[in-house]
């Protein structure tokens, strides 16, 4: 059996696709383990979803091909929470507010604050605390 991999994705569902049980099929038909971080349906009935999918590479590929048959756009970087690198001053205020250490200081000499998206669980705790408005949510 081939190895399983995990991919972080952000999906955007336009109004017409919001009511379809697409995620259900990812689990049932493609054997994927799904871990949803954050989901939102806007008043315009559009939907956003940030999730991890875990499974064998082929299954993931086929599953994504299936998702694409709908009018759903896939953002492979899975960034629901982004940091504007030009705006960040590396002040370090966000660090204590981030529960997972996605925002952290690795290099004690330069004290650069890094943002590792892979560790972000989209809790949104950091969004309002950045004094330089560098952190933002895609939805």
């Amino acid at each position: 059996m081939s190895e399983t991999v995990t991919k972080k994705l952000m999906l955007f569902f336009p109004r017409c696709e919001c009511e379809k049980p697409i995620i259900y099929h990812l689990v049932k038909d493609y054997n994927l383990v799904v871990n949803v971080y954050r989901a939102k349906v806007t008043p315009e009935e559009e939907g956003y979803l940030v999730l991890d999918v875990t499974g064998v590479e082929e299954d993931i590929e086929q599953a994504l091909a299936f998702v694409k048959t709908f009018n759903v756009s896939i953002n492979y970087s899975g960034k629901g929470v982004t940091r504007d690198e030009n705006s960040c001053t590396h002040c370090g205020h966000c660090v204590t507010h981030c529960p997972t250490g996605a925002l952290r200081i690795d290099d004690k000499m330069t004290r650069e604050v890094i943002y590792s998206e892979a560790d972000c669980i989209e809790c949104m705790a950091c969004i309002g605390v950045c004094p330089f408005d560098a952190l933002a949510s895609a939805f």
Partner: protein
Amino acid sequence: MKTYEQINDRIESGKAVVLTADEIIDYVDKKGLAAAAKEVDVVTTATFGPMCSSGCFLNFGHSKPKIRMSEAWIEDVLVYTGIAAVDVYLGATQLRHGDPANMYHPGEFRYGGGHVIEDLVAGRKLQLFALSYGTDCYPLREIRTYFTINDLNQAIMVNPRNCYQNYNVGINFSDRPIYTYMGTLEPERKNANYCSAGQLSPLLNDPYYDVIGVGTKVWMAGAQGHVYAEGTQHAGACERTPGGIPKGGAGTLALTCDMKKMRPEFVRGVTFRGYGVSLALGIGVPIPILNEDVLKRTCVRDRDILAPVVDYSHDYPQNNGKVICCVSYEQLRSGRIDVEGKEVAVGSLSSYYKALQIANLLADEIRRGDFRLAEPIAPLPKDKKMKPLVTRKKPS
């Protein structure tokens, strides 16, 4: 012993030996104080952080016909017009007109004076709206126009208080989150914030103001400015460590420079949720190594600098002067401090990353011969204390 003249000659000839306040520590350890004092000409210090007492004078030139602005706004941010006709002063903490402030607590404070200053320095186009009562010599009563910093005759940063020598560590002992100029502080001592570049910070490398004085040339976001006075609330007479380092705010600097020469990456508008707006500035101060004493003071280390931990939910607002405990910058930088038996996560508002960049940029400028030092024309007072505001019921 060296003089300013000798140091400037070495700078001019491109031979000056310049190190940052970070590098000098190991250097002196290795070479010894006496040898290093002979060799090193300048140590560069720096800081980058919110500095609320900042602002600028702008001169717009005259419109046709002329106006004597009696009220004016830039991007809807009120500026002070109680000076000559088309001069204004724009302050960093001024809110935008119509900002709901803390009406819905905690307010967002997305834009204000500090952001206008950032936009100006970044060369963005801004809106000026001004009103007047009209006079015989200045008949125009209203003007709305768009401008960039290049359209102005002068844009001069004049900051009454920058570069606090040392600063509080903010913490919250209450059971609800609080929103302060020390950032968002979670309840029950969940986090603490400090705001200083520690061993890299200008006045911590010259604790008794032996070399930094009125007239000292400084690097302000890339522009060459200078110290024009002691900063407001400058209070050098304070509790100090045996090594002479103040255990609280203490000294401050009043700084000025030509804003047209500033670099946008070091001039940034600041938003504090639930508190307001401000301006973060990057400042570098060169320390001339005149003798061994001056050099010795620049070797100060994070572990020797203590900051007072203050409860911003009660003691700070009530102005009762209570300090919970003192912690060193070494402890703060480790990311965890102990406050009365509880381990507390530490964040910061001052960017050491940028401060280090600035110390290196300034060192490079001096090495290249592009930044000469200036000898102070007057010292900063050492014996001043900070006075409180007395609330009197009657004038007498």
